[in-house]
């Protein structure tokens, strides 16, 4: 069995991550998980929140950067910040609410208080201190680099990291297409289907673009979608030779990748709606909109349809259908997978208020479908992988589908690799990126207001 050796945290990373397989320890070893909290959830741009969750000055939500509790807020001047949710006095978390609006945060333990730009505002009985509280060391630590890409807020502790735009690179193209699907390209987060599983966070990231698992892991859903025998619905196109279809998977670099099922659709308005499986209210809304809008109804109904893309931004963000899925590591063998619902806005007035309201309500129902009837089965399989990893002597996990078959791939000028939908090429590529991160020695830092 693999033994720990001398380099990069005591592991031989080239032994753990090989071209065709990875060692069970990368999912099961608590020390590797600890290292991920700095070398991944710290060293690269990590998704923190969507701007629609903090639309106004002084709005905040609480969240995590890896395991670090943070407050993501829009300060009194409108600047988006990610404050460590940790009193500089004794380390207590300052804010225990999930969201709200506040210009300051006061520690519930001894009453130190801070403005939402991170500056200390005051402490009780300062005459008992011989220090000058204007010293920046008493201001809250905060994530030194916070940037947004089209509403998606990311942060990193690594001053040497590239700009967010460079980090995202070519994955911006499918992200743009996902965002621009509705006129004006504005979405708003609206609650979430929140799931958890007793398994390593990478099991979720491995899965999001995996076209190979669909027909087996989701067999119950595919059979359910077909129970009325009324045409191709939902994920039915996976049933026969999915590799021969126009859909594909693409690896775009830096661990990011996407699966694009759009080429399977009929190229017309309503092509997406035509394969939508069954959701509460759908026939009523469709008939009403068709009566009201005529041919234009088809394009509008597509806004309620589940966009057939699985876009994965390393390490913790996925755009799946109409969801923003966030992967939150809890421990080496526990993970939250939070599927935030989204609604659309009518930025330029082309949809109309009444139609927008109907479409967004229908969109709530379409979004509830997969977490309820599909994701629960995946998550069960993730947990059962974690259980299988208890077989200490059976060490390897394979991700070699399509490997050594160059005729299955093409690489474009930007270095994006395209392959058939069931290929594991994206897994092999992202885990190599992961390995390079784990081998590196990033310098992480926090910032405090001067």
């Amino acid at each position, binding site marked *: 069995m693999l033994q720990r050796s001398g380099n990069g945290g005591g592991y031989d990373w080239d032994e753990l991550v090989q071209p065709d397989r990875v060692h069970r320890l990368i999912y099961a070893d608590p020390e590797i998980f600890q290292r991920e909290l700095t070398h991944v959830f710290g060293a690269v741009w990590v998704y923190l929140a969507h701007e629609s969750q903090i639309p106004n000055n002084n709005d905040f939500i609480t969240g995590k950067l890896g395991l670090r509790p943070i407050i993501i807020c829009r300060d009194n001047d409108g600047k988006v910040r990610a404050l460590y949710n940790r009193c500089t006095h004794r380390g207590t978390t300052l804010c225990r609410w999930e969201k709200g609006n506040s210009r300051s945060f006061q520690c519930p333990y001894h009453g130190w208080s801070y403005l939402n730009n991170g500056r200390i505002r005051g402490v009780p009985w300062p005459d008992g201190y011989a220090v000058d509280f204007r010293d920046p060391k008493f201001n809250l630590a905060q994530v030194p680099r916070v940037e947004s890409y089209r509403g998606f807020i990311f942060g990193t502790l690594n001053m040497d990291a590239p700009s967010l735009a460079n980090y995202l690179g070519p994955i911006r193209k499918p992200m743009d297409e996902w965002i621009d699907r509705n006129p004006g390209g504005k979405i708003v987060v609206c609650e979430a289907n929140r799931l958890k*599983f007793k398994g390593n966070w990478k099991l979720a990231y491995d899965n999001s673009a995996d076209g190979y698992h669909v027909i087996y892991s989701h067999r*119950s859903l595919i*059979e359910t979608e077909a129970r009325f025998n009324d045409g191709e619905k939902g994920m039915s196109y996976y049933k026969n030779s999915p590799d021969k279809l126009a859909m594909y998977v693409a690896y775009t670099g830096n661990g990011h990748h996407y699966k694009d099922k759009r080429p399977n659709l009929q190229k017309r308005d309503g092509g997406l709606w035509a394969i939508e499986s069954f959701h*509460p209210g759908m026939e009523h809304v469709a008939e009403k909109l068709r009566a009201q809008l005529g041919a234009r109804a088809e394009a509008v109904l597509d806004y309620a349809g589940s966009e057939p893309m699985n876009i994965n931004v390393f390490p913790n963000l996925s755009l799946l259908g109409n969801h923003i899925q966030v992967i939150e590591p809890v421990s080496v063998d526990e993970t*939250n*997978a939070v599927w935030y619902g989204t609604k659309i806005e009518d930025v330029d007035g082309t949809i109309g208020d009444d139609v927008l309201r109907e479409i967004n309500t229908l969109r709530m129902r379409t979004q509830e479908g997969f977490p309820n009837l599909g994701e*629960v089965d995946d998550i069960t399989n993730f947990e059962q992988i974690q259980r299988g990893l208890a077989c200490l002597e059976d060490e390897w996990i394979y991700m070699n589908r399509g490997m050594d078959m160059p005729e299955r791939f093409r690489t474009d000028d930007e270095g994006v690799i395209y392959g058939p939908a069931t290929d594991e090429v994206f897994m092999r590529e992202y885990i190599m990126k992961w390995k390079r991160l784990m081998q590196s020695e990033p310098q992480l830092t926090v910032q405090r207001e001067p």
Partner: protein
Amino acid sequence: MNAPGMPNHDPSRFSYYVTDAFYADLVAAYTDWQRDDRVVDDIAVRERVRLLLEREARLLDQYRYEEWLTLYLPNFVYWVPATPDGGDPRVQVAVTFDDRRRTEDRIFRFRTGYAWSQAPPSRTVRLIGNVEVFRTASPTELMVRSNFITSEFWDNETRMLTGWAGHRLMQQDGHWLIQCKQVNLINCDQSLRNPSIIL
């Protein structure tokens, strides 16, 4: 579930009843309904309602879904909000907001044999208590609040799912049938592990 010859608006097959008016009526019914001045203290009514809830719990524990569905109106909703205040299903996703067809989808899925999250199926025992019945403006409509503790054995573990349910009952041909079951898990806004049973 999909009997031949049924009219097109068969709610097992098509979803026409979840309309604007349906949502508006539902949200209104679930607003400000647990009022002391509306408590029903008639023992006979309370007993009837309690029997209905206990029967529902037993049928679900025994996977007797067809019989369970007979407790419901044709056009019903099974609703598990994702926010502790219930929220508004028109503008928020819920943990679950199922009409009849999706509820039957859920049951169909369990029985495919490939619903890995329920293979083997959870075993459940439901305890129901604190049943309070409330009058509404309509004599043929009642609201019921009950607390529940559901013990669920799954994957070598027993866990507790707890919360309270708000049943909206409507009288039809002398019987009280369920028009909506709103299940308020106390941790509904937190991450849930394998939320795949019908609560």
